[in-house]
């Protein structure tokens, strides 16, 4: 048997797949982006269709059994919360407000914020409660959350979070190297509400305040306070759920101007 030794050439790297990692990364990221977009659009469409078919009565019934207040101690002692609840009850009688059993709960958190939970529960942080002084400010904050109920944003938010969560579990189901990556992608996808939804809720809130109190002065003060206590750089609002306070003031002024001119015109029904 004659053995012939040949010089090693590139062929020794035939199955090494050397230098293909970045190409591979680029290609896979493009695939993943397309997949994520398609899946998210499908989920959002399905959720919107389903939410549109859920009546307020069904919503109240559906989330009655899953009451969150069982886990949150009732705060009867806080007079400011009781005051806010009475403002909420008054706003709730307005015809444009969805008929849900509204209840206000206090969330111990320094960060000023408020949340709409399915079934008519509104959570307000202690940080926001401390900032508010006048009735009209309370009314606007609550009106904004009622706007989320009116537009069904809270149901959509939950629907999307559940849909995206299930989809990620199906797609990645135990294969993903790190769980946190899947969670993070999900976090970005289900930012609670979009800017457009927040603006719509602002508009609903200001209209409700105007119809209930006949004026809107004092609401802009709220955003001035928020702007002053604001530590977030303005670029960070790109990733935030709520728009920049100065943008919100501008939006509100435009909306109030439009509403005023509508009311002043003879066709307006006030």
């Amino acid at each position, binding site marked *: 048997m004659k053995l012939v030794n040949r010089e090693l050439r590139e062929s020794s790297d035939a199955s090494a797949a050397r230098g*293909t990692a970045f190409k591979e990364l680029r290609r896979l990221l493009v*695939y993943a982006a397309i997949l994520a977009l398609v899946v998210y659009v499908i989920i959002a469409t399905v959720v919107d269709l389903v939410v549109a078919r859920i009546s307020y009565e069904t919503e109240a019934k559906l989330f009655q059994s899953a009451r969150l207040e069982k886990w949150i101690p009732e705060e009867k002692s806080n007079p400011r919360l009781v005051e806010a609840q009475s403002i909420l009850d008054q706003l709730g009688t307005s015809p444009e407000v969805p008929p849900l059993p509204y209840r206000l709960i206090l969330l111990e958190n320094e960060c000023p914020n408020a949340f709409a939970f399915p079934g008519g529960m509104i959570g307000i942080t202690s940080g926001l409660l401390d900032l508010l002084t006048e009735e009209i400010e309370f009314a606007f904050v609550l009106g904004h959350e009622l706007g989320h109920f009116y537009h069904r944003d809270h149901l959509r938010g939950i629907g999307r979070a559940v849909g995206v969560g299930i989809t990620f579990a199906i797609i990645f189901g135990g294969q993903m*190297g790190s769980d946190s*990556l899947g969670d993070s992608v999900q976090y970005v996808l289900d930012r609670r509400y979009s800017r457009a939804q927040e603006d719509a809720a602002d508009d609903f809130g200001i209209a409700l305040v105007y119809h209930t109190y006949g004026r809107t002065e004092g609401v802009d003060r709220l955003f001035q306070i928020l702007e002053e206590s604001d530590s977030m750089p303005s670029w960070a609002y790109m990733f935030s759920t709520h728009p920049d306070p100065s943008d919100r003031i501008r939006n509100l002024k435009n909306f109030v101007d439009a509403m005023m001119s509508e009311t002043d015109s003879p066709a307006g029904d006030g």
Partner: protein
Amino acid sequence: MPAEMIINLGFPIAVIALAMITGTLLEKRHFTSIRRREETFHRMPVLTVKGYPTGTPISKAHMVSGSTVVSIDYFKRFLASLRNIFGGEVRSYCSLLDRGRREAILRMKAQDSEADLIVNLRVETSSVAQGKRKQLGSTEVLAYGTAITFRKTATE
């Protein structure tokens, strides 16, 4: 909110990016080393045949083996997990296994660098699972064969 997002999203991305840099550098160095040693050993043929060339007197024949364990990095795992969704060749694992096989064969050769040839080569691969979900953590490659040294004759 952005701070939370930076932790949730930024940390895994940073780990993957770090693994991308270190993994690529280490792999490049490993391949350079493999090529260099393959050059030095290329006069020692390795055959998969069971027997040995008859008619030549043999002075020594014994088993040689070499093994290595090569670890996956986060970047390769990330690429592979994306491949798991879309299908196709998992190229990030190809280079890993290629490194393992060639390193194991080189170590086997190094066990008897005076041998004239190695016959009956066998290569075995096993995965060393890690973590709760038994994900592929590293790959072990074992190469073994029979090293043969011919008796030196006056003509050589």
